[in-house]
C-alpha cells in the first residue's frame, strides 16, 4: 500500500525559517534509509502558504485567495510518499523521523482504484475516467 506522510507546519515553516544544518543532515539520513529499503517513492518540502494561493468555492463560484492563510499547524509543510506492507510499517518508519517536540506527521493511506469501485455507478465511473484521461 501507498501512504502519504504529511509533515504539518508550524510558525517557523510558515515564516520560511529553515531548520539548522544538523536537522537537515538527520532528515537526509532518515530519507536515505527509506531509499535503501526501497520504500520511498517521492518526497518534497513545500514553500510557506505566503508564497501560495487557494481557490475557494462559494455560492458565486471560485475565488482565489492569496496566502498566507490558515493556522500554521493546519497546513502541510512537506510530504513523503512511501510504498509499505501495512500502515503499521509506515508508523514504525515515521516514528524514526528526526522530529522535535510539537512536530506532527499525518499518515494517510492513498486510495487504491478498487476502493472507489462501489462508490459510483458504472456510467459515472466511466465518465469520470474519460475526463481524467483527457486532463492527464
Amino acid at each position, binding site marked *: 500500500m501507498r501512504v502519504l506522510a504529511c509533515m504539518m507546519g508550524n510558525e517557523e515553516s510558515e515564516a520560511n525559517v529553515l531548520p539548522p544544518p544538523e536537522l537537515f543532515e538527520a532528515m537526509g539520513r532518515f530519507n536515505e534509509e527509506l531509499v535503501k*529499503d526501497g520504500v520511498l517513492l517521492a518526497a518534497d518540502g513545500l514553500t510557506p502558504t505566503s508564497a501560495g494561493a487557494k481557490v475557494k468555492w462559494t455560492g458565486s463560484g471560485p475565488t482565489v485567495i492569496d496566502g498566507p492563510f490558515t493556522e500554521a499547524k493546519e497546513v502541510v509543510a512537506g510530504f513523503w510518499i512511501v510504498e509499505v506492507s501495512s500502515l503499521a510499517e509506515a508508523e514504525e518508519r515515521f516514528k524514526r523521523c528526526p522530529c522535535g517536540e510539537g512536530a506532527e506527521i499525518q499518515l494517510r493511506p492513498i486510495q487504491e*482504484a478498487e476502493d472507489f469501485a462501489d462508490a459510483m455507478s458504472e456510467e459515472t465511473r466511466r465518465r469520470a475516467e474519460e475526463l481524467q484521461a483527457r486532463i492527464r
Partner: protein
Amino acid sequence: MTGAPVDDVRASIDAVWRIESARVVAALARLHGDLGLAEETAQEALVAALEQWPRDGIPRNPAAWLMTTGRRRAIDRIRREVNLREKVAVLASDLDDHDDPYDEADSRLDDQIGDDMLRLIFTACHPALSTEARIALTLKTVAGLSTAEIARAFLSTESTIAQRIVRAKRTLSARRVGFAAPTAEELPERLPPVLSVIYLIFNEGYAASSGDDWFRPELCRDALRLGRMLCNLLPNESDVFALTALMEFQASRLAARTTRDGQPILLLDQNRALWDRLSITRGLRSLQRVRELGGTRTSYALQAAIAAQHARAATAEDTDWVAIAALYETLAETAPSPIVELNRAVALGMAYGPQAGLDLVDQLRDFPELERYHLLPSVRGDLLARLGRDAEAADEFRRAAELAGNDQERALSLSRARALES
C-alpha cells in the same frame, strides 16, 4: 490487558520485522559466515521479541535489540559445538567488551549495511540453488516475508516452503558457499540470476501461473522493492535500472488490467486514466539512468523501452508503433525467441499494416515452441480479420479457443469467431 493493545504490539512487531529482518540476518550472517545459522538465530530473536516486547514495550532501537539477541543465540549454539571453541572466545569477548552492546551493534550495522545487503541478496540467489529455492530464500531473508506469506503467494503449503528453505540453507552450508558479495570480476556472471529471481517474483505476481486470481499485486510490490534496493546498492549497473524500469511500467498498469469481475483487459483496451503516473515517472527516470550508463541494448532495457513507449502514449491511438517495431527488431537480435518474434509481428502489423504482420506470423508457424501457444492463432486471426479474410480469421480464433489456458480467454476467442461468422 485487553485484546486491542496486544494486537497493536503484535502489528508493530510484524512491522519492525519487515523493516529490520534483512539487516539483522545479513549482519548475523557476516559474523558467522553461515546464512542458515543467521536466519535461524534471527528467527529465535523474533520469537524472543514476541515474548518480551508486549510485556516490556518495544525497545528504543529494535534493530540493535534483535541483532544482539540473535548474536547471543548464535553464540549459545556454537558453544555447544566443541570444535568451535576458539570462535566462541572471540565472539564472546567481542560482545562482553562493551557496556551498551545495542549501541555498539547498531553503529557497526551502519558501516557494513550496504555490503551486507548485497551479500545477502547474492547468497540467497546463489546458482547452487534451484530456482524455486532462490525465490523462497530471497523472499524470506531479503524481503522479510514469513513462510506463511510466501506459501500464500505461491499457492503452496507452508510445510513445502519451509522444507524448501531448510534444504536451500543446507545446500549452501554443504557446498561451503561463503557469505560474500561478488567481486567486480564476478558481478557480470552473478548478477543475471539475481535479476531473474526478482523478475520471476514480479511475474508470479503479475500473471499468476495458477489459482483463481489473475494477479497478486503484493508480490509485484515486493519484487519492485527488491529492485529499488538493488538500484541503491549497485548504482552503476545499468541492467538493475533496466529491470526496475520494466517492473515500474508494468506495475503502473495493475489497476487497469482487469474488469471489476476479474476479466483481463488487453493493453490497448485499458483505461489509461487508471495507469499509475508515479510508477511511470519512476520508470522513465530509471530508464534515463540506463541511458547514462550506456546499457540500452540488453533484453531488460529493450523490454523497458517498449513498455515506456506504451506508457508515454496518452491514448492507444497515440502509440508510436514504428518505434516499438524497431525496438522489437533489436530485441529479436539481442535475445531471439519465438515469443519476441510474435510480439514483433503484432508491432509490424500496427506500424506497417496487417499484411506486414501476417508475413512474419506465417514464418513462425513451424516453431515447435509455438505449436500449442494460443496467442499465435489469436494474433493471426486478428491480422486476417483486418485484411477482410473473415472465414480464415474465424478458424484461427476457434483454434485459439481450443488452446486457451483459461475460461475467460476461451470465451473471448469464441465470441470473436462467432462475430466474424455472423
